[in-house]
C-alpha cells in the first residue's frame, strides 16, 4: 500500500461491488493535497498529455507558451517546419526563457544573461562565450531541454515527460479512431482559430471529466438550454444516446437525440441556407469518404475524453478543451474553436455563434456545469472527517445492473464515469 489519505490507500478511494451494484468514490479524491501531488507525479508525469494542435503554430517560427502538468513549456515550429516542445526554462539558471504567450521568432533569448537559443533548441549565442572555450561540448550540453516525447495524431500534439511511455497510438487506443472521425469533417482539413477561452474553475479536474461523461445531468442542469432548443424548434431527447468505455481511462458519449450538427444534421435554428448546404455537404462527404464513414462521422454528436486532459466536443460544432490541474480545488481550462479549413464565412460565423452560445464559460449551458463542479467542491467539505465515514463517498452506480446484463450503457447512466475512475485508481494508486 502507498500513501494513506484519511486512512485510505489511493487505490481504495474507488470502491466497486458488482454483486451489490455499488460503485463509489471517496471524496478525498477531490480534496486531498496528497492525492493531487500523487496525480501530478503518477499521471501527469507518466502519461501522454494533450498539448495543443498543430494549426495553432502554422508557420515556421510560430510559438505558443503554456503550462502543462505544472511545467512551463514552449510549443513551437522551428525554422525547418518541425514541431518542437521545450521546457520554458533557460538551461543556464532556470529563468523562464520566453515570457510572451505567443509570437514568431527564430531565437529565444533569455533576458537575464542574454543566452540565445534557436527555435530548434541550439544554444546559438552567449555573451563572453570565450570563458567556456576550455569546456568540452559546453554548448551541446546546454541545449534547450526538449520534452522527452512528442507525437501527434491527426494534428493533435501530445507530449510525455516520461521517456518510457508506450507510443502515442497505443496510449490512445480506440480513442484514436474518434479523433480521426472529427479530423475528417472538413474536405480541406480542420484547424483551430484564434480567440482562445482561458478560464479557471474552483473545482477538482476530475469533476470536469465526470461532468463531460455524464449524460444524466443534462436535462436538469441544462434545463434553460434545453428550453431554448425546444423554442427554436428542436426537441432534445435522451433516447439513443450511449456511453462507451474506450479503455485506458478514455471515454465517449455518442449522442443522436441531442442536437444538430452544422453541415451534417440540420436543425431549425441553423436557418434555411444551412439546410441546403447540409444536403450538399453530405454528398461531398459521401464522395470523399464513402457512405459508411460519412454516416459515422456526420450522424451522431460525440463527446470524447482522452485521459487525462483532453475533451473533444464534436456537437453542433467543435470545441477542443484542455484541463490543467492547478490545485485540488482549482483547474485551469483552455478551449479552442475547431473549424473546417476554408469554409464559407457565413458558415464559420454560424459555427462559432452556435458553439460559443452553448459550450464555454459565457454560453447558455457551460456556466451551469461550472456551477455544478464548484458546488460539489464546496459541498464535499461537509462530509470531510465525518463522524460517520459512510457519508464521505460519492455514488456512481447508476446503470450498473444494465451494464452487468451486458447491455450497452446509456449516456444517462454513469458507466463512462466508472471506467474513468477505474483507470484513475489503477494509475494513481499504483505501488
Amino acid at each position, binding site marked *: 500500500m502507498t500513501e494513506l489519505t484519511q486512512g485510505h490507500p489511493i487505490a481504495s478511494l474507488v470502491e466497486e461491488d458488482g454483486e451489490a451494484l455499488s460503485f463509489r468514490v471517496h471524496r478525498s479524491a477531490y480534496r486531498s493535497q496528497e492525492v493531487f501531488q500523487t496525480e501530478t507525479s503518477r499521471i501527469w508525469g507518466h502519461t501522454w498529455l494533450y498539448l495543443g494542435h498543430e494549426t495553432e503554430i502554422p508557420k515556421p517560427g510560430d510559438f505558443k507558451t503554456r503550462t502543462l502538468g505544472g511545467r512551463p513549456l514552449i510549443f513551437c515550429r522551428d525554422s525547418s517546419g518541425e514541431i518542437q516542445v521545450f521546457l520554458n526554462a533557460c538551461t543556464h539558471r532556470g529563468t523562464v526563457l520566453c515570457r510572451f*504567450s505567443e509570437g514568431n521568432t527564430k531565437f529565444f533569448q533569455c533576458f537575464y544573461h542574454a543566452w540565445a537559443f534557436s527555435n530548434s533548441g541550439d544554444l546559438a549565442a552567449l555573451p563572453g562565450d570565450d570563458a567556456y572555450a576550455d569546456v568540452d561540448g559546453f554548448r551541446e550540453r546546454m541545449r534547450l531541454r526538449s520534452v522527452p516525447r512528442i507525437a501527434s495524431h491527426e494534428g493533435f500534439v501530445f507530449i510525455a515527460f516520461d521517456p518510457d511511455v508506450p507510443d502515442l497510438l497505443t496510449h490512445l487506443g480506440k480513442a484514436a479512431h474518434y479523433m480521426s472521425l472529427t479530423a475528417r469533417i472538413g474536405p480541406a482539413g480542420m484547424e483551430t482559430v*484564434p480567440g*482562445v477561452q482561458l478560464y479557471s474553475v474552483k473545482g477538482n479536474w476530475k469533476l470536469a471529466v465526470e461532468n463531460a461523461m455524464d449524460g444524466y445531468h443534462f436535462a436538469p442542469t441544462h434545463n*434553460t438550454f434545453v428550453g431554448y432548443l425546444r423554442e427554436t424548434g428542436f426537441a432534445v431527447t435522451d433516447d439513443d444516446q450511449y456511453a462507451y468505455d474506450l479503455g485506458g481511462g478514455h471515454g465517449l458519449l455518442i449522442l443522436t437525440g441531442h442536437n444538430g450538427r452544422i453541415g451534417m444534421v440540420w436543425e431549425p435554428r441553423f436557418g434555411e441556407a444551412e439546410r441546403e448546404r447540409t444536403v450538399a455537404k453530405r454528398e461531398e462527404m459521401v464522395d470523399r469518404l464513402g457512405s459508411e464513414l460519412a454516416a459515422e462521422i456526420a450522424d451522431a454528436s460525440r463527446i470524447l475524453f482522452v485521459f487525462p486532459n483532453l475533451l473533444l466536443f464534436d456537437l453542433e460544432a467543435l470545441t477542443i478543451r484542455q484541463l490543467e490541474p*492547478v490545485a485540488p480545488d482549482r483547474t485551469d481550462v483552455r478551449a479552442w474553436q475547431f473549424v473546417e479549413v476554408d469554409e464559407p464565412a457565413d458558415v464559420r460565423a454560424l459555427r462559432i455563434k452556435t458553439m*460559443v*452560445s452553448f459550450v464555454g*464559460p459565457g454560453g447558455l449551458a457551460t*456556466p451551469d456545469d461550472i456551477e455544478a463542479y464548484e458546488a460539489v467542491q464546496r459541498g464535499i467539505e461537509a462530509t470531510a472527517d465525518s463522524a460517520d465515514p459512510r457519508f464521505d463517498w460519492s455514488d456512481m452506480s447508476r446503470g450498473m445492473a444494465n451494464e452487468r446484463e451486458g447491455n450497452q450503457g446509456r449516456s444517462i447512466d454513469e458507466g463512462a464515469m466508472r471506467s474513468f475512475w477505474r483507470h484513475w485508481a489503477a494509475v494513481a494508486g499504483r505501488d
Partner: protein
Amino acid sequence: MSTERTQQVERSERPEQVERKENVVGGRTITRPEVEDFLYREAQLLDEWRLDEWFTLFEEGGRLEVATTDWKGWDSSSAGSFMCDDYDLIRARVKRLKSRKAHAENPHSRTHRMISNVLILEQGESTVWVAANFIVHRYRDGGTYTYVGRYEHVLLVEDEGLRFRLRRAIPAMEAMDAGARLSFIL
C-alpha cells in the same frame, strides 16, 4: 494595448466616418454626458437584474459580444469569443437568466459596476462609436471576482435616446480567474 486594439476594430463595424465640426449624429447633437448617462443607466439596470428593461436598450438586430483575453481586434464571426450573441440569443440569454433554472445565476450574483474614461471615438450618419473602461465586481458564495476591461460599443442615435447596435466588452485580464465565469452580463 487598448489603443492598439481600438485601431484594430474591424472597419465594417465602425460607423461610417463623416467630417463634422460638431457632434451632430442622427440629426441632433450628441454629447459625452448623454453617452455617460446611457452607460450608467445600463449599469444600474444590470446591477439590479432588470433584464427585460436592459434588453430594450438594444435595437432589433443588435449584438452582444465579450471578447476572449487574447483578442487582437478580430471579427467575432471568424474567431472564438466568450459571447457572440445575435439578437435572438440575447433574448434567449435574458429569458434564461430570469429563470430559477439558470443555476449559475440562481441565486443571482451581486454585481457592482464602475464605468469611466468614456470617449466618443467616431461618429457616423446615425451611429456613434464609444469607448469606456469598466470594473465589475461580482460576489457569490463567499467568492469575490473582479472583471476589468473596456467597452467599445456602436450606439444608434435616435431622437428619444441611444440604443445598442453592438455592445462589446473586452476583458483586460490575461485569463478569467478561478471562479470568474461569465454567467452574467459583463
